């Protein structure tokens, strides 16, 4: 069974790029562009991995992460945070909230792919 990745991201071009990279590697990529309904989408799927943006319409990626880690059924899902906000305080906040991996944009396609594989393999 193909492993499922949920991509929570609002920039259509970035969704397109990551979908292309991961599906080429055999992943099923579900994209979700809205922050407010993202948590419900996670619970409905639930995916093997979540790629999470920070600046989202409706709700920030940090809030979604906090909710995920608080929900017992979903707390184990690895979360790769991918953001254009690369400041130290953002990284620290993400780590405090229990992020699996924090990456800044722009990224190398190969690196993203490698990290996704590594996180799900664990």
């Amino acid at each position, binding site marked *: 069974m193909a492993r499922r990745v949920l991509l929570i991201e*609002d*920039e259509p*071009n*970035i969704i*397109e*790029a*990551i979908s*292309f*990279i991961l599906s*080429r590697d055999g992943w099923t990529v579900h994209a979700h562009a809205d*922050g407010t309904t993202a948590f419900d989408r996670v619970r409905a799927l639930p995916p093997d991995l979540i790629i999470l943006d920070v*600046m*989202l*319409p*409706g*709700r*920030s990626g940090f809030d979604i992460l906090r909710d995920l880690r608080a929900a017992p059924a979903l707390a184990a899902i690895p979360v790769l945070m991918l953001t*254009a*906000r*690369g*400041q130290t305080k*953002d990284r620290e906040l993400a780590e405090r909230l229990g992020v699996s991996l924090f990456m*800044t*944009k*722009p*990224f*190398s*396609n*190969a690196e993203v792919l490698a990290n996704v594989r590594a996180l799900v393999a664990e």
Partner: protein
Amino acid sequence: MLTFNLLVLVALAYVAFLFAVAFAAERRAARGDDGWLRSPLIYTLSLSIYCTAWTFYGAVGYAARSGLEYLTIYLGPSLVMIGWFWVVRKLVRIGRTQRITSIADLISSRYGKSTALGVIVTILVVVGITPYIALQLQSITLSFSVFVDPGGDVPAGASRDAVALWSAAGLALFTILFGTRNLDANERHHGVVLAIAVEAVVKLCALLAVGIFVVWGIGRGWTDMLARIDASPIADWSQPGGRWVGLTFLSAAAFLCLPRMFQVLVVENGNERHLVTASWAFPLYLLLMSLFVVPIAVLGLDLMPAGSNPDLFVLTLPLSQGRDGLAMLSFLGGFSSATSMVIVATIALATMVSNHIVVPVWLRLRRDGSMIAGDVRGVVLLARRVSIAAVLALGYVYFRLSGGGAALSAIGLIAFVGVTQILPAMIGGIFWRGATGLGAAAGLVSGFAIWVWTLFLPSFGADAVIPAQVMAQGPWGIGWLRPHAFFGVQGIDPVMHAMIWSMLVNTSLFLIVSMLTFPNPLERMQGAQFVNVFEHSAGTRAWGQTAAAAEDLLIMAQRIIGAADAQAIFLRAAQAQGKPGYLPDVTPDFIALLERELAGSVGAATAHAMVGQFTEGASVTVEDLIAVADEAAQILEYSTQLEAKSAELEQTAGQLRAANEKLTALSVQKDSFLSQISHELRTPMTSIRAFSEILRDGDTGPAEQQKYAGIIQDEALRLTRLLDDLLDLDVLEHGQVELHRQRGQLRDVIDRAVSAAGPRGGRLRLVRRRADEAIMLETDLERLAQVFINLIANAQKYCNAADPVLRIEVARLGAGYAVDFVDNGTGISPEHRQVIFEKFSRLTDPGRAGGAGLGLAICREIMARLGGGIDYLPGQGGAAFRVVLPVADAMAAQ
């Protein structure tokens, strides 16, 4: 021994001298060299017409009969002037702002420019003052007679009448010559005023000279004088309290109400500051005038044969000591007192008679014919000249009929009580807005009637007018109407009796009727203007929109105030309205101005009626009521301005607080600046890098290749746009931008902006009213379009309504135009409104991801460069922005 002929010669020479003085003053004034004529000294001296022959000669007689009581006549006016801050100051200010011509005009103007009240006051003062003028004629003839027959008895009838007749004729000539030179009573009569000032000096010097002669020439100084007083028949202080208080009040009231005093005090006042000097200088003048009265009286009683007329001691005492020169000076002093009073009183009365009786009657007679056909100016001047002659003739006739003697000597106080009837209406009018015209009329008529019945008619002597039987029993035997014992109150002195009853009834009716009646709009407006004259010194405005033609008004004004003056007024008004030529638009403001100018010549009521003939509806209309409301609003605005001024400190503190809050907000923004700019640059960069790597890897089909190359290009463009915006803003902020001004339609600019922003946001529906947008602009149309594009794009991006709609509304705003962009989303919360125009202020609300936050900052800078503005418009339902197009840029399309 002085002969009668020598005396006549001296008097004539003195009169010739006065004519010369008056002529010289008029000529200097005509040359514009009238600075010293407008000095506070001249003003103070002109007030001295309060001291008539009655006080010059009569005060000594009064002291000889009643001790110190004569002082009340001087103390009352002294207190009024010392207390100038209470009443006189307000009267003078009202007189100037309302261009009041007489006391009748004051009352008429205050109570809604009422013709009836003007007539009532005029009749009242004519009845009261004519005998007073007769008294002056009598004093002149008496003083002549002293030299003919040193006993002071009544001289031979023929010469006595001749003296009175020639005096009256001479005074009429002088008054007509110098009192009617200009029609506008607000322009001072320089010749008359200077002649009066000279006469004031003459009479003061004369009385002081006689006094000094008496104290140090006959007596041996002050201590001797005091000893003589103690030894005299008037040694004891036995003043009845009622008369002392009553007469002080009476003289104070008369000082304000006498037409001649109103004339010099208010109408001829050239500068309010003169009051400050007069406040101490005039009491000083009165003090000097009364200083030697008691010594002269005491020595006269001592030295003159028993039975001598004490009223003439000022003349007979020097004569009996062989001092002919001094007696001559004293004669000139008395002559001066009499003539100056007559001249000013006549001018004042003639102004009232012509403005309030002759001209209104003439107007009514001609009502059906065209006013323009008549020469109003000529009529008014003629009316005034005839009135002068008539008033003096009336005085002379009264003098002849009364036969001189004792009946006249009492007339001074009687006249005082008569004119004092005006006091309640006057004081009430300037301090109480509730005073109404009906109340004033009720008070005046009732007071006047009581005065006539209880004091004026009985003063002619028993059986002269009122039969002795009526005096004793009352009319038709009604006891409580007995002239000297109203309501059975007996035993009071007649003057006090009349004063108390008339003032009591007058004031009560004035107050009660005022409270029971409702004033008409014009009355209320005038009332507000009078009572609040210090808060609001602009003139009244009474007329609404009118259909009067400017040309008709000009023709009429020329006939009243003369061609040159009228044209000057019209030219000024036209210039003020920015129109060439002599015919301004007939606006309510202009009508009010013209009416005020005319009021200075013919009085408020007549001016109102005259202008009313040319303006639709002489009655007060709804528009007038709106004008009243406007006036009130102006007053409110004015006081608010004052308060705002005084609240400046508090405002500054508030501004500081606001600035501080803004600074704090800005500093938070600065902190997030790096984070923001990094985010804005990284987002397109991410797509570019990801897709370029994909393309480099090479395992994509041609269609995908094409698509991904397109995305790379889009994102690169987005990046460029961001950098462009940053540079653009930098250029705008540093003022290095070059504007390309062009002419164009606002509609075209909006069209261009809509099509430029259009393709990206097809969902947003635009609502426009293209007809409103037909406005010619001359500005940098490209930059303006940039602003519009930004606003439309913002609505596309941020409007969160299910069915987003953007309304673009164009409306006049003051001299310019406002273009409003209003969407139907949730709008921008108040705490964000003050920072949205700042750089990188993209709302940190995560729900509002999107632009770089530079758009509105750029819009603001552009609009500032174009001389307009952009603001958030609260309370429109959704997000709303108002672009204000600057005045010079907007021109209504033809």
